[in-house]
């Protein structure tokens, strides 16, 4: 029996085989979607760039060389140099670390928060549900960017506060999804069976409800990544996110704004990096949705 047959076995012998088979089938389905593959490659590129930044970047992201300010792109400086003579390509490469950190942290904060709130609301129903979802809906109907701006204004500029502010505006959507998913199987037989065995509510939510919400959460988080990157870059652009000399892409565009008419590359280059990475997440998210959430396939 080949590995492939083992993975595609219609009647798996173990839970591990079933899971491995599911992931294998999903992987196969993803591979058939060229845009999803492209998206996955872009994100792998982002991760690799972030991890190997010191080896990829030809220069330090903060090393100033004032005798070569604002040079156009050339074979020595692929993306030109900025107003302090720093190599823009090197800064873009190091910027991948900041972007990756922001999206990872926002996902780590917002997704579990929304997941727990939504799962609890959906599982218990009644007034718990009404209260939690009322709260969620109020947050959901606020303009996200404006809310993030106001939070950062209150908390003070800086990358940590930017991450917190974005996470605060991101969780309600996840709570809605988790609740909707939970309600579909709340009264199903297997949940009743686990209850009969005597499992606590916390155990049921943690071990049975949450895992079943995972696939739609993954799809939604991936699709949201582009928005998170844009918001973070926007905060950086307004001077409220990452502070100089951090090579954050939005902040770099902000610095280049003054030179946009004559030295266009200073502001333009980091923008291409933002577009590439956001597009990667969009492509992958679209592909993941087609695979994981077929009833939503082809929609919004």
């Amino acid at each position, binding site marked *: 029996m080949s590995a492939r047959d083992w993975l595609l076995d219609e009647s798996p012998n173990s839970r591990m085989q079933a899971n491995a088979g599911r992931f294998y089938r999903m992987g196969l389905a993803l591979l058939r979607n060229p845009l999803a593959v492209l998206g996955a490659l872009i994100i792998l590129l982002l991760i690799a760039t972030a991890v190997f930044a010191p080896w990829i970047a030809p220069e330090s992201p903060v090393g100033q060389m004032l005798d070569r300010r604002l040079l156009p792109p050339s074979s020595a400086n692929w993306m030109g140099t900025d107003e302090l003579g720093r190599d823009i390509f090197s800064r873009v490469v190091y910027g991948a670390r900041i972007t990756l950190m922001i999206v990872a942290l926002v996902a780590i904060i917002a997704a579990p928060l929304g997941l727990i709130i939504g799962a609890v609301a959906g599982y218990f129903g009644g007034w718990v549900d009404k209260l939690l979802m009322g709260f969620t809906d109020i947050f959901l109907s606020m303009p996200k*960017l404006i809310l993030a*701006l106001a939070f950062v204004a*209150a908390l003070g500029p800086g990358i940590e506060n930017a991450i917190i502010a974005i996470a605060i505006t991101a969780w309600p959507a996840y709570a809605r999804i988790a609740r909707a998913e939970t309600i579909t199987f709340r009264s199903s037989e297997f949940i009743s069976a686990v209850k009969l065995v005597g499992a606590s509510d916390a155990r049921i939510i943690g071990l049975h409800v949450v895992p079943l919400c995972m696939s739609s959460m993954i799809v939604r988080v991936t699709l949201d990544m582009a*928005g998170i990157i844009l918001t973070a870059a926007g905060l950086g652009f307004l001077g409220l996110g990452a502070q100089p000399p951090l090579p954050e892409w939005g902040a770099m565009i902000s610095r280049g*704004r003054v030179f946009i*008419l004559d030295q266009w590359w200073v*502001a333009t280059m980091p923008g291409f990096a933002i577009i590439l990475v956001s597009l990667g997440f969009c492509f992958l998210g679209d592909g993941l949705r087609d695979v994981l959430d077929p009833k939503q396939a082809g929609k919004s």
Partner: protein
Amino acid sequence: MPIDFRSRDGILRFFRVLTGFVLTIALTFLGLLAITFFIGRVVPIDPVLAVVGDRATQEQYDAMKIAMGLDRPLILQFVSYVGDVVQGDLGRSVSTNRLVAEDLARVFPATLEMATIGIIIGVGLGVPMGVTAAAHQGSWLDQGIRVLALLGYSVPAFWLGLVGLALFYASLGWVSGPGRVDIFYDGVVDPVTGLLLVDSILAGDWEVFRNALSHLVLPAAILGFFSLAYIARMTRSFMLDQLGQEYITTARVKGVSEWRVIWVHAFAPIRVPLITVIGLSYAGLLEGSVMIETVFSWPGIGNYLTVALLNADMNAVLGATLIIGAVFIGINKTSDVLYRVLDPRST
């Protein structure tokens, strides 16, 4: 069922929907106020210290704290905050030294004008693109529109604004640069509506109109691109839903032309959900204008907000947040209700 205004039941149902609508909108506004109130309290800047200065004695400090009402329980402070806002009192801006409410009334029309032109562009191009993509599902045309729409989710608005300025203003000279109108024309026409295009038409001053239009077209087009992306994507998915329906086959069986199948049979049922999408998108544009206005030095509410942010002018920040939030919520909930009132099928 559509609301039937001819019958007594229909009118009763309309009032039921209306009451529910007023209730949720009131609750959401209260939530918005709670958030801005909360943000105002977590500011690390001590509001009392900001007034009395750091050389005040403890007695002076305490007296001012009582005078400002900050010694009362939080809930009472919140109630008086809500009372102030309801009466239109948003406090005074420290950077402009005017009432925030007055400032907002002055800058809002500029944003409204830009967002309105933006949504017209977004709807005018986005809907036909979405319909075309769905009608040719899987074709290269469809893929192209899909990628264009995804770009709308991936391109930073402020970056596109900068690149647009560099290209269409600096290099090609097709449009005018930042600002709402050339300084030369500033204040030439009386502000009647605050919408410069409308005011210049009212004044019959075509020179100002042309100038204002050449300033407006680029930021509005960029804003329109983002709503186009969203609208085209939603239109496409609605249309795909429709084109798979049995009554589309019925129409084809009747020998109806393909154009009519798409634009009458498939498109008619999605008009109502599209209203919601367009409403959401319009509200989103008010938000998106923050970045665009900053880039284009557009004297609207977004620019006002970012200037206030950089000056840590909290009254102005919270006032602008409140107004944008309120308009955002208002448009959202209204399109929700419109959907329920207009949908000829079920509610």
